[in-house]
């Protein structure tokens, strides 16, 4: 996979769903090599932002994107009783976009297996997907996104509720892609984790509250504008967000 420079610039993005404004006038830039965290309370429009970038919901505004997209949707969208093994899930990404069909070349299969290996599941290639643990399933879905060979990775809460080793594996793999010129946009509820692993942050609450390098966004006054009373500030500056992990739109 040759390193290509990816890029994303969003200008004035707005989305209306069911008569309601879900996102309003959101603008930010994400450079190649960056892992960008998308933060915000429930209903902030984080998932909607990703869906707009994918072209699945209509939006107004402008999006300049360099590179192909790869996507990891929120877990729970998967029909786990589907008759398929881990390898089959990853291989699905190799059907040519918009043409689909039924044949996969041996090169496709080799790539799929390689991606599965990269997330540490080559040994489980023939295990039925519904027999895998939560962390294993999530790694398979990330491998599927990698097999899409996209330079713009969109991940919707990829680390939620899975075991720590799986989280580490996923983060390592994404970081490796970013070092090679890809760019990753990751929504999350976990502020501490975002501060640790991301280089840039986008803070949403229907509108853009703040965006930029971590230090600029991870400030009490900034966070308070998004999280309001869900924020608890302790004497020595520690901040706790009371934010249940619901699914937003």
């Amino acid at each position, binding site marked *: 996979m040759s390193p290509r420079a990816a890029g994303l610039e969003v200008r004035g993005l707005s989305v209306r769903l069911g008569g309601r404004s879900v996102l309003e006038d959101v603008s930010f830039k994400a450079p190649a090599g960056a892992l960008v965290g998308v933060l915000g309370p429930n209903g902030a429009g984080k998932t909607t932002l990703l869906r707009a970038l994918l072209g699945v919901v209509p939006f107004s505004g402008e999006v300049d994107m360099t590179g192909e997209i790869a996507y990891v949707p929120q877990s729970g969208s998967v029909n786990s009783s589907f*008759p398929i093994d881990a390898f089959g899930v990853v291989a699905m990404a190799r059907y040519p*976009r918009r043409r689909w069909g039924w044949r996969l070349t041996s090169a496709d299969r080799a790539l799929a297996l390689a991606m599965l290996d990269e997330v540490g599941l080559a040994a489980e290639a023939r295990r039925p997907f519904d027999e895998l643990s939560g962390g294993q399933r999530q790694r398979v879905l990330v491998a599927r996104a990698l097999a899409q060979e996209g330079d713009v990775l969109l991940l919707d809460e990829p680390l939620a509720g899975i075991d720590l080793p799986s989280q580490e594996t996923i983060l390592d793999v994404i970081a490796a892609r970013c070092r090679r010129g890809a760019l990753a946009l990751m929504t999350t509820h976990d502020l501490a984790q975002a501060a640790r692993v991301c280089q840039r942050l986008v803070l949403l609450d229907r509108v853009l509250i703040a965006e930029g390098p971590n230090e600029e966004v991870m400030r009490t006054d900034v966070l308070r504008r998004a999280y309001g009373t869900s924020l608890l500030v302790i004497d020595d500056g520690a901040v706790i967000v009371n934010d249940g992990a619901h699914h937003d739109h």
Partner: protein
Amino acid sequence: MITTLTIGFSLPTPFDAPYMERALLAGALIAIPLALLGAWVVIQGRAFFAHAVGVATFPGVVVGLGIPALGPFLGSLLAAALFTAVVTGLERDHRISGGAVTGLALSSAMALGAVLLVSVFGTATPVEAVLFGSLLAVSDADVTRCLIIAAVTVAALFFMHGRLAAVAFDVRWAAGAGARPRVVAVALPGLLALAVVGALPAVGSLLVSGLVVLPAATARLLVVRLPGLLALSAALGLAFSVGGLAAARLMDIPPGAAITTLGGIAFATVATGLAADAAVRRRPGLAR
């Protein structure tokens, strides 16, 4: 075509008449698209729709039989198309709504058929044949239709295979990857309605869904991956269809009933066999 079968003692062979040849040929041909579509029906949990669209053809057949210019095939095709359009339009998400609208629609279709039967087209309509199939009702034209429908369905399913799998497994990802779930949401019910219509002369409106669900459900108990599921579903569908038609001839029962009873017995056997096997494996003393 096999026309004689030698057995030790004499029995009327199931294959000895032209009408039987036609019935078996049509049954074998149409079983394949029904079973393949049935695999997707089982995966997506759309068995209620499959049953409903079968029932909904009843008024179409009644009208078609009563108006010779229309004919039962066109009548049932129109009824199935109309029903599919209305129900897919009204049922926003079959998982949430639980199919109440589908249920009411199929009941109304049945009632409409009953009214048309008695009041308009008279008692000459062979009700039992329409509802449960008849070996005598399969014409040469029906055989040709089954061939065409089978060819079209198999081609379409091959062509759309990757898209279907992606949408059925993870619709959000599939939409993002350009698989266009809306196309699938129209194509699958449409192909199902077409295949159901093809099977009506032999199997009848009320039981055709058996040839859709029973082979695939049985196969799903035995197979782990999709290509195998499709292949085994088709094979079982073929077996149930031919076996049931033969049994119908031998026992003088409606073919639809024979086919689904055979399928039911097969499913029950596999299910209980597997359950018993699992129970035996769990007990330490008897472990293999």
